[in-house]
């Protein structure tokens, strides 16, 4: 190696460091999101068959989603405080003619009945997910969380956290585009 190449090589550590620094800085400047998007978007619903949360015999089955019309699949629980805040928006969506299926996570029918009486009941059917197994199968990590399922039973979109008044228009658009 000539002396000249060696002199250039001596600057390599600095260049490498600056490259790493730039990458890290760009990561830091970007808005930080702690949401973890589901890997199931674009996939068919995983198979499940849940007992009813209303004490009747109407089960919630994955296969029933492929009925040609889009659905919202809402994970909630009577013990979940943000779910109370979300309830009015779900009622608005229902009035707009959207079919909403509920899955109650680690819940009891008696508590559910009380929750629905107090906050309104937008759900066509409610399934009981006692072990969070279905929730995990969909790649959801908390309640409330809402998935848009198209008419073929394919998961199209995910909304993490409560649906606020500002999210209603987006949810409507997401469901309409999922036909």
């Amino acid at each position, binding site marked *: 190696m000539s*002396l000249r190449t*060696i*002199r250039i090589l*001596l*600057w390599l*550590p*600095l260049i490498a*460091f*600056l490259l*790493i*620094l730039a*990458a*890290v*800085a*760009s*990561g*830091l*400047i*970007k808005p*930080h999101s*702690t949401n*973890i*998007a589901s890997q199931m978007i674009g996939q068919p619903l995983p198979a499940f068959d849940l007992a009813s949360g209303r004490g009747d015999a109407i089960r919630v089955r994955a296969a029933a989603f492929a009925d040609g019309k889009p659905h919202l699949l809402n994970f909630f629980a009577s013990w979940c405080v943000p779910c109370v805040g979300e309830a009015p928006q779900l009622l608005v969506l229902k009035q707009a003619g959207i079919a909403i299926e509920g899955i109650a996570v680690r819940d009891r029918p008696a508590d559910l009945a009380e929750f629905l009486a107090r906050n309104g009941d937008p759900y066509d059917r409610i399934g009981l997910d006692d072990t969070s197994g279905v929730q995990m199968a969909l790649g959801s990590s908390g309640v409330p969380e809402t998935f848009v399922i198209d008419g073929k039973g394919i998961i199209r979109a995910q909304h993490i956290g409560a649906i606020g008044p500002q999210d209603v228009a987006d949810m409507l658009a997401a469901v309409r585009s999922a036909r």
Partner: protein
Amino acid sequence: MIAETGLIALLIAAALALLQAFLGFGALRPGGEPLLRAVRPVAIVQAAMTVTAFAMLLLVFARTDLSVKLVAEDSATTLPLLYRITGAWGNHEGSMLMWITILALSGAAVAIFERRLPERTLAATIGAQGLIALGFFAFLLFSSNPFERLAMPPAEGAGFNPLLQDPGLAFHPPTLYVGYVGLSVAFSFAVGALLTRDVGPAFARAMRPWVLGAWIFLTLGITAGSYWAYYELGWGGWWFWDPTENASLMPWLAATALLHSVSVLATRDGLRAWTIMLAVVAFSMSMVGTFLVRSGILTSVHAFALDPRRGAFILILLALYIGGALALFGARIATVAEGNRFDPVSREGALVANNLLLSAILGVVLIGTLYPLLVESATGEKLSVGPPYFNAAAGPLALVLVAIMAAGPVMRWRRDRLAEIGRRVAIPAAIVVVALVAVLVALPGLRILPLLGLVLAAGTAAASVAPLWKRNLRRTPLFTWGMVVAHLGVAVSLAGMASESAFSQETLVAARPGDTVHVGPYAVHLAAVDPVAGPNYTAVRATLVATRGQGAPIVLHPEQRTFDNPPQQTAESAIATRLDGQLYTVVGEPVPGGRWQLRLWWKPFVTLIWAGGTLIALGGALSLLGRALPRRRARPVREGYAR
């Protein structure tokens, strides 16, 4: 007033750090010699002020002064005294103040004890130390003031993370920080030497004890942290390749490489540029580690103190310090005269191989740690890099490293003959072959990495004591003993890792009181599950009676603790340590039907991992004593001449 005293002490310390940097670098200019005499005292007073600030923080925490925001957020009057005090560094601001206190103390230690470095290099070193401190003081004062008051003090504090309510917090962070931040001395030495172009054996001999000291604490801190995570998290693992663990491993790898290259520089005047580079890299890794942990840019089990805005601040400091040092390296190192050359087959050659492998492992860990970050900033995709990558990429390199480590100490400086080396490592090599045959016959189907680990550990244990062969043990220098003990520690630790990974047995059951579960050689009887009340938690406590053959029963009490301030559950493992391993028990959630989750492990020889780590640190301490003692003995003679 205590908090205000702390804040004022911090402000004075920051001003003194600025002065220290001016004096230190000013002394290098022509005519700057009069400044030399002021540099040392300023560094000492700066440290005294920083220690005062830290003492004030301890005091507000010990008294639980809830009008101080930090105390209100991270402590409570209901905590036991030990955790009220250790809680002072169980949060972001407090741990940063401890970080900078150790930085200031390191600078003062150099100012007080360092006598071998030429005055000009020393002044530049202390100046660099002041400059680093200045940036971190600014960080503390502008974005993380630990002494901020609340206008309306709450009636009770928000409590303290239950996972940190453990005596481990009293030892692990301080030791680790002494190691981390102690490396700043090597960094400042390198900056000083680059500025004065004075890199040689004398410089290396002056730097070596400082590197050794920091390295000992880093080794102890990592060993203690590994054991702490092992028993406190209740997951039964001793190393998770978690970003924060990696953040402590990376400076250790660099410091280990530095420790060996500085020996080459001290003994043979070789590897000048490389040693300087490593000194810069080692502390840079400490700062990168601090950044990774403090900025919250990587989520980890240590996510108890994170904040992206602060991350940006530390990032700017990193750019200034690491970037500045590397730029200085690029500009100056070419003008440092080249050191001695040597034959590839020599002690130096082995040490270079050791250095390259350590650096390669460092690269592997760095890439694995930063990869999720780089991918996320490039594509927005979130992913994590876990043990499968690290074990596969770093494991084989580490095994080769250990093999070279076994052979290195029996090689001669400057030039050696392969045939001669072969004769000297014949016995360890024979042990490797015997161990390989024994393991293959006795334990067929063992996975390759644990197998190589066990075999290599046997050979390395033998090879590490080889330098003592046919020597008068009483006249063997202490630093040679240090090397032997440290290398033996690596073999011991490796044996523990291989044994844990190959022979651990795990049982997870839902058991009723009265049931008996088997794990390894033990029959574990679940005698009872009772509620108990702790000082600031309630718990369910299982009573387990473990018996092994006809041996006396061992009673174990794992707990599932429920803290209410803040609300959190922790699993408190109960561990029985025997000579040949540990029985590790965890009680989990209740299961319908009056049963309890029980998780039991039998981990043969797992304690060797930490015993080995402690031996490595002990070797370092012997070595440090060996380097320091002869000097002390020699001094009166020299002073006698001077008079």
